[in-house]
């Protein structure tokens, strides 16, 4: 928050001196002075200073008087290995009173611009004095590069369920079973799940028989973050379907022949599904999901176009 015009007037004009440094860091110190001047110019009037180096209050007051500034900024830039320690002070030239102090440790020279951004408002009284003796490299990195990578969870899901064909597909069977294996990538509100499953009919004594092996990927939105959270979504993929059923064949009219024979028809096909359900124990390592799914395959088998089914199941998320 920039100081009010009245506050700024009390500081102006302000000058920034080159911070005290070791010989090898002269260019670095000069660069930091210029960075600090740029930040301070956003709020107050800054007068240029000669290449005066001051690390003490007395030196800074003398330089400020000579330049004609009301407020003088000075400090030190100390190198500790690859790290830098920046101590900055803002003092009233006439009274010698220190109006702002900032003391930061940064992880690398590249973070001096960020240090200048943080120090400037402190020196002009816009922010409380800041003393950070911890590694600033970590702090400034977080400030300048917010962490966009959020945590998530992933693991194997095993699902068991029942299948109910709806349009005389799946060999005309009344019911079937499903076993599925998938790998779920779960974030706060989203879940992506590639999966493979096997479905078959529950009619061991009959001649009708179906098999289905879907290979699909699904995406879901999770409503809520508690232990019980509804979810909804869908997916697409390919599947192998096999439909075997007894079919009556009638040929002729005046002289007619009738026969009942098992007809086998199978194919690979594209398909899709919609799924909704509830996740339970979501905050735990092992979670459950109860789901209902509508499934369609785009193929014609044994005279049935686009076989469809409803599947209900329970999934265990590891």
């Amino acid at each position, binding site marked *: 928050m920039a100081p009010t015009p009245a506050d700024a007037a009390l500081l102006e004009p302000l000058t920034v001196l080159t911070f005290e440094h070791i010989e090898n860091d002269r260019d670095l110190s000069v660069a930091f002075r210029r960075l600090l001047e740029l930040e301070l110019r956003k709020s107050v009037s800054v007068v240029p200073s000669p290449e005066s180096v001051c690390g003490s209050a007395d030196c800074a007051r003398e330089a400020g008087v000579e330049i004609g500034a009301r407020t003088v900024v000075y400090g030190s830039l100390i190198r500790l290995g690859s790290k830098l320690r920046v101590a900055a002070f803002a003092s009233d030239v006439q009274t010698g009173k220190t109006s702002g102090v900032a003391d930061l440790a940064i992880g690398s020279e590249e973070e001096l611009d960020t240090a200048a951004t943080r120090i400037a408002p402190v020196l002009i009284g816009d922010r409380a004095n800041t003393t950070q003796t911890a590694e600033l490299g970590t702090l400034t990195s977080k400030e300048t590069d917010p962490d966009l990578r959020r945590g998530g969870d992933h693991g194997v899901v095993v699902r068991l369920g029942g299948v109910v064909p709806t349009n005389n597909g799946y060999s005309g069977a009344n019911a079937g079973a499903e076993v599925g294996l998938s790998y779920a990538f779960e974030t706060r509100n989203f879940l992506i799940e590639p999966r493979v499953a096997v479905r078959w009919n529950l009619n061991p004594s009959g001649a009708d028989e179906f098999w289905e092996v879907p290979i699909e990927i699904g995406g879901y939105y999770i409503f809520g973050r508690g232990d019980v959270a509804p979810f909804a979504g869908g997916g697409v993929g390919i599947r192998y379907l096999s439909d075997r059923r007894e*079919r009556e*064949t009638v*040929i*002729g*009219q*005046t*002289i*007619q*022949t*009738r*026969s009942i*024979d098992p*007809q086998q028809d199978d194919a690979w096909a594209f398909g899709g599904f919609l799924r909704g359900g509830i996740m339970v124990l979501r905050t735990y390592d092992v979670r459950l999901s109860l789901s209902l799914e509508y499934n369609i395959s785009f193929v014609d088998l044994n005279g049935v176009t686009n076989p469809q089914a409803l599947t209900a199941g329970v999934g265990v998320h590891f």
Partner: protein
Amino acid sequence: MKTVGSPWGSTAPFMALLALGSGGCEPATNADSVEPECQGVPAQVAGTWVLSGTGSRSGCENDKLDTDRFDLSSAGIAVAQNGDTLQLAEASETFELFGTVAGSCLEFTTVEAVENDSIRYAWSARVTTDARRAQGSFSGSGPENCISSGTFTAEW
């Protein structure tokens, strides 16, 4: 060969030759190879026929038509007989029947139009002694180049 006191006189040698020829030296005629039941007065088989039987079908272009067993049945087929010739009592655009009766032997052919194809059956049967039915076998072709065969009974 000369016979004594023969009333044929000088014609005896000629007649003897004729007798020999009629005894089997000449080639057998068709009448000799025909089964006995297929000779004589044709059985009377005119009436409304109902066919039934079983068979099998294979070699179809659409293999879903192949079957190890089918049941055969028919609607009533009005058949007229003129001597030894059989035909439908009323002409039909989609169905034909023609054949012959020789003694108790029944041979006929049917052709039925089915969609853009046809089914042709060749039937061969024996008429029972009560002349109310015939039993025999059949072979057929079509549709879709299917080959069929089986046994049947015709009743009228």
